[in-house]
């Protein structure tokens, strides 16, 4: 009986050695702001209200990844972005629309579109992944278009810049997708609003 217990303990010990390495990390994240976009602004008056969930944004979760040496890693992360995303969108969107009115309440006055940014993913483990979405809606609430941007920034990139690079790339992709978005183009065309020189897709 004693031998069986020892054998079982040995098997459990061996199996636990084969499982993923568990790590946890808690970070206060303040990435660098990307440069002001070189972008032909849409000739639209926009209202931007940062959603409450982004004013003190925290992303908590787990991410499984395989390390360079083949080890499986299970990373539990707790990322505290504070109000970074609000500052980010507040700044970036000013280069993207003719005028942007920051508003806490329902937009007032002559507004063409209401801008609603969202963080769809912000994770850490085997690199950093940040994914943004931006919804453009009419003041009455009808959605014109939703564009997304973001991609994994792998861990082999410079570690101290992983969040900077992830944010920078996610915003860049979001802006280019906005520039090419067919729904927005159709909405503009229906209102005889001419805009832009498009890059090839």
């Amino acid at each position, binding site marked *: 009986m004693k031998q069986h217990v020892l054998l079982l303990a040995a098997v459990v010990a061996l199996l636990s050695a084969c499982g993923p390495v568990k790590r946890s990390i808690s970070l206060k994240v303040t990435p660098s702001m990307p440069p002001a976009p*070189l*972008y032909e602004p849409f000739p639209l008056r926009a209202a931007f209200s940062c959603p409450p969930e982004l004013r003190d944004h925290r992303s908590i979760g787990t991410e499984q990844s395989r390390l360079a040496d083949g080890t499986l890693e299970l990373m539990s992360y707790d990322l505290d972005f504070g109000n970074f995303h609000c500052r980010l969108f507040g700044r970036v969107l000013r280069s993207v629309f003719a005028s942007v009115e920051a508003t806490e309440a329902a937009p007032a006055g002559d507004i063409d579109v209401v801008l609603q940014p969202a963080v769809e993913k912000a994770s850490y483990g085997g690199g950093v992944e940040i994914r943004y979405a931006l919804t453009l809606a009419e003041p009455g609430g009808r959605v014109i278009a939703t564009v997304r941007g973001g991609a994994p920034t792998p861990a082999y*990139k410079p570690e101290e810049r992983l969040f900077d690079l992830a944010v920078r790339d996610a915003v860049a992709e979001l802006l280019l997708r906005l520039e090419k978005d067919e729904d927005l183009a159709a909405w503009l065309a229906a209102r005889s609003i001419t805009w832009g020189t498009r890059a090839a897709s």
Partner: protein
Amino acid sequence: MTPLSALLRAGACCVLLAGCPAPTTTEVKPIAASAGTATPAGTEGMAGERVEIPPIAGAEGYVVYPAVLDMVDQEEAAACIAAAIARDAPQARAIDPARFRDALYPWMEPTTKPRYEDQMQALARMPQIQERLSQLELRYLIQVDGRRNDGTYRGTTACTGAGCFSAGSQSMASSLSATVWDLREIRALGGIDARSSGTGVDLVVGIIPIVFIPYTGARVCTEAGDAIGRAVAAGTPK
């Protein structure tokens, strides 16, 4: 064979091998320019092929930019080409790649930069891009793609009473391609594609390691850097 004689034989083998460089082969090929290019000024590659890169007016500004961003291998390859140009044509005007990337944000980021020739042409035709390039006083983009591939390691270890002997080999390959863009004329001028491969060998006798590494990365850097450097020097008055 006694352990001592085995060790001596292995040691002699190491001494003999140390006299030989690790074998490498390097191949250099031209990259065709867009239709209607100017008369090419050739440079001689390792394999004796003509490498068609026309003179580059370096005084009008150039930037050496990695094809894949934020990766060590790629940034090293770009730095290598930049160093070769600075050496061969110090009078040419280099633009810092980070400044170029920031100035053109969001168009030259990992997920947004042009991947194909028509995309690059469409981007370069955009008025705001042309205006920004003019502000930067930048005419040429030299896009560099450097890669290294370390193959499988094969080795063996044997121990005798006199100590241990271990031997192994690993194939290594490097490639570096550089494409020159004239952003004012909006066309690719041509480029170079250099590849090098070799086999690294390591021997350990007792506790003495002897390692031979084929410098494939350095070889492709030298070949591509020389070709681009000469083209910039040819087009840049001293």
